[in-house]
């Protein structure tokens, strides 16, 4: 039975929430669950004018449904549009995302801005060009075939004096044409802009300090708000129940109002510092009961849970597994990890009696509109969401939670309210990337050919009720419904190898009682999958007496997987492990992985201090094939960032909690990789001019993480089955071996 999402309808707050994702196909590529909030007052996706406008000054505005997150999508999508329209980059711009105005393309998730957004923009631009040429043909009285375009000026081939700019053809008026998606697009061989390293349009202002992040937005007359919550969440199902609030405890702080709705508590004040200190000083008694197993008990609790089980994939017969020459069988554990955006989330809400405007850093404006409608009771057609880029969030951090908090406080205060989460709110009340447990076994024959592979994985899925709503309205905690639930990712569990007998079983843990809130964190769960799977492959290579790179080559056929593996091995100057290999404290590791689309491989070079157990990542290499690379420079920047972030997540990051609440609350208790710990990085882009665009924002994380684990074995002869690979874990393992 396949439980990957097909189409799922959930009646919610007067609008429909539709989950769409491509069903996973054996050997193919899939995509994540993506929430498309439908509802009234959305631009008509079947109108050409929804996608772009041509102005009288011969420039164009492209309406993009994806958020700039520092990944460069607002430039890359303009590159695609300018290419098809035959405009220069200086002639195209985009507009801030806003409900009612910009197209609903779902969330900016799954590295999909170019993969999913690119084809639409390309088709719309091509169709607009076609329409413009028809107009020019009539005005110039010349057949279409003789028209050429350069910099938005249509002229007759061989007679450049007879010309008309786009601006004169339609200038600032609507096309009033349906968007059919049928216009022919350019041949990639003719590209002048796509595939080149145009610099990002957001970088100069980010460097000068003129860029307006969400945290910089100011509204006249706004109050500053802060939420008041326990430091660190309890179990998702436990919420946070208020027993008493002592307003007298902050009577020395001027002009502060304490506002409460249900168990949602906040303070507002004209001055930010007053709100900040009032939120810290306000004496609140919370009904605190143990609701969690503690971070060290989480995996056993998951194994013991009454799970919903499904076989995601079964090929051949894995009962032959144990009869092969080389067999490995291990259990792997991954921790909860936090988004931990560098600047905590921020939002401003201005709630009027029957309308609300919220500015925030959501990755999905229409979905946030639905949530703001729910929390305020205002019909969604009267809810406006305006996007401002925040600090890099890497998935579903607290952007919706803070937006709802601002809306609640604004509704209660009857004034615009700006809420910024404190560091402990952001890390302590995050929707974490869930913990994972895997039992994996695999085997290979005497020639080093893979025979069978079986993986059982346990994890809970995404929490859908935001904390503010849960506390304010008493809305029950809920998880993504069955068909939309995130489970094992078959693509990262052996699909890159030829394995005749393979079985993947998903054990969905009910994640409400006894678990933390969870949601998608960059390359959801893939680090855990690759950590387990690619160490298993490495171990078989060792048992078969083969170099791990060579072993992988023997078991692969797919040309695109082979290309990234060979590219990264070459860049890293991979040295095959010799027969006389002994752990030297210096190690190299190699691994494959992706998210859903694209193909990636990584090599890690590390040094291990045997006395302290500290792993130093010296150099990380990552190769990525993301299909047609619209801007290889952006992909290189993404690969570099992922190599560093993977090092951070694999070596350092873990959300800790006791039986009552989360104890990771700041950068000391949730440490991330620091400057001096940062490896050198080498990004490699495998350009595929004739393939579809696919994701580049998360695909290198999982192979990079697994390569580090494999490098640890090469350096020390030990394998860790649980990450992060902390000095303590390394030390303990080395002691056991000794």
């Amino acid at each position: 039975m396949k439980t990957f999402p097909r189409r799922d309808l959930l009646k919610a707050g007067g609008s429909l929430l539709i989950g769409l994702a491509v069903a996973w196909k054996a050997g193919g590529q899939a995509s994540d669950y993506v929430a498309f909030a439908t509802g009234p007052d959305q631009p008509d996706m079947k109108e050409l004018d929804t996608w772009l406008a041509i102005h009288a000054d011969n420039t164009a505005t492209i309406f993009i449904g994806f958020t700039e997150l520092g990944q460069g999508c607002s430039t890359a999508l303009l590159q695609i549009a300018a290419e098809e329209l035959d405009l220069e980059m200086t002639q195209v711009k985009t507009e801030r995302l806003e409900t009612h105005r910009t197209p609903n393309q779902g969330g900016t998730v799954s590295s999909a801005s170019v993969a999913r957004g690119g084809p639409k923009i390309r088709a719309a631009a091509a169709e607009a060009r076609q329409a413009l040429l028809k107009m020019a043909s009539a005005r110039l009285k010349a057949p279409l075939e003789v028209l050429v375009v350069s910099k938005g000026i249509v002229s007759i081939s061989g007679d450049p004096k007879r010309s008309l700019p786009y601006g004169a053809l339609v200038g600032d008026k609507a096309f009033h044409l349906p968007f059919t998606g049928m216009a022919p697009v350019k041949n990639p061989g003719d590209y002048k802009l796509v595939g080149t390293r145009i610099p990002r349009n957001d970088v100069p202002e980010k460097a000068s300090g003129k860029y307006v992040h969400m945290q910089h937005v100011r509204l006249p007359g706004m109050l500053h708000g802060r939420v008041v919550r326990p430091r660190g969440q309890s179990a998702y199902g436990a919420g946070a129940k208020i027993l008493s609030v002592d307003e007298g405890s902050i009577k020395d702080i001027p002009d502060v109002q304490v506002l409460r709705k249900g168990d949602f508590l906040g303070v507002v004040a004209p001055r930010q510092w007053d709100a900040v200190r009032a939120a810290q000083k306000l004496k609140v008694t919370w009904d605190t009961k143990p609701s969690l197993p503690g971070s060290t008990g989480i995996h056993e609790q998951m194994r013991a849970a009454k799970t919903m089980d499904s076989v995601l994939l079964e090929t051949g017969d894995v009962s032959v597994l144990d009869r092969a020459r080389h067999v490995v069988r291990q259990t792997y554990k991954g921790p909860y990890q936090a988004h931990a955006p560098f600047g905590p989330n921020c939002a401003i809400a201005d709630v009027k009696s029957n309308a609300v405007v919220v500015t925030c850093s959501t990755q999905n404006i229409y979905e946030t509109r639905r949530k703001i409608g729910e929390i305020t009771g205002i019909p969604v057609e009267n809810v406006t969401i305006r996007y401002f880029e925040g600090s890099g969030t890497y998935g579903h951090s607290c952007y919706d939670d803070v937006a709802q908090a601002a809306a609640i406080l604004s509704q209660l205060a009857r004034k615009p309210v700006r809420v910024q989460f404190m560091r402990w709110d952001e890390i302590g009340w995050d929707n974490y990337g869930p913990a994972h447990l895997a039992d994996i076994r695999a085997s290979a024959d005497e020639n080093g050919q893979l025979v069978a592979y079986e993986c059982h994985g346990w994890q809970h899925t995404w929490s859908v009720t935001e904390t503010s709503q849960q506390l304010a309205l008493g809305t029950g905690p809920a998880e993504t419904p069955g068909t939309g639930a995130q489970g094992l990712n078959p693509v990262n569990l052996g699909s890159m190898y030829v394995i005749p007998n393979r079985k993947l079983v998903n054990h969905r843990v009910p994640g409400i009682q006894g678990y933390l809130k969870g949601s998608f964190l960059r390359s959801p769960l893939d680090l855990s999958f690759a950590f387990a799977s690619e160490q298993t492959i490495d171990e078989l290579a060792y048992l078969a007496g083969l170099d791990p790179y060579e072993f992988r080559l023997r078991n692969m056929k797919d040309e695109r997987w082979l290309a990234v593996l060979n590219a990264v091995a070459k860049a890293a100057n991979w040295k095959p492990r010799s027969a006389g290999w002994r752990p030297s404290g210096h190690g190299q590791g190699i691994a494959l992985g992706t998210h859903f689309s694209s193909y990636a491989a990584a090599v890690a070079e590390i040094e291990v201090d045997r006395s302290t157990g500290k792993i130093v990542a010296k150099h990380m290499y990552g190769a990525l094939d993301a299909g047609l690379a619209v801007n290889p420079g952006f992909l290189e920047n993404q690969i570099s960032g992922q190599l560093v972030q993977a090092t951070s997540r694999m070596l350092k990051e873990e959300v800790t909690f006791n039986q009552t609440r989360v104890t990771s609350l700041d950068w000391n208790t949730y440490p991330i990789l620091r400057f001096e710990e940062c490896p050198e990085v080498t990004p490699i882009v495998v350009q595929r001019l004739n393939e579809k665009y696919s994701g580049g924002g998360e695909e290198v994380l999982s192979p990079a993480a697994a390569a580090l684990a494999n490098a640890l074995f090469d350096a020390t002869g030990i394998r860790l089955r649980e990450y992060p690979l902390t000095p303590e874990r390394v030390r303990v393992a080395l002691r056991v071996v000794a």
Partner: protein
Amino acid sequence: MASELKIRVNDRQWSITSSPDTPLLYVLADELELNGPRFGCGLAQCGSCSVLVDGVERRSCVTPVSAVVGKSVTTLEGLPAWYAKRNGLATAPNLHPVQQAFIDEQAIQCGYCYNGMTIKAAELISQKPRATGAEIRAAMNGHLCRCGTYPRIAKAIERAARQIAEARK
């Protein structure tokens, strides 16, 4: 509660109405409406809010505004002028060489940490124009970046230092 503090920020005198214990960050962000220093942790752990106080990098989130009375505060906005003054240039460039290097290296992703990165790098180069790669990494170690742009930041700082040295020849 109006105070009557006067502080000097980016070579201009400001009268402040915030209470003296208010962290400098909130004064800069809310009273002066500056966008350089920004909230990251409020705990002096990340470097997001950094400013220069008499040329030395300070965390404005834990520095009471009263502590900078009589001193000279420079934010990201005032950095090119501060650089010009220290180097005896007649006019301030549009950008400090470190800012220009961040653009040249296309180092930035979300950009939120770049206030602190820029301030700290400017301080470092002003004190140690020939900082080695290891010295740069050590100096920058108190500044975090979630996007993982450290390698390009380090390259950009080296580039800026080189350019400054060449300009002085």
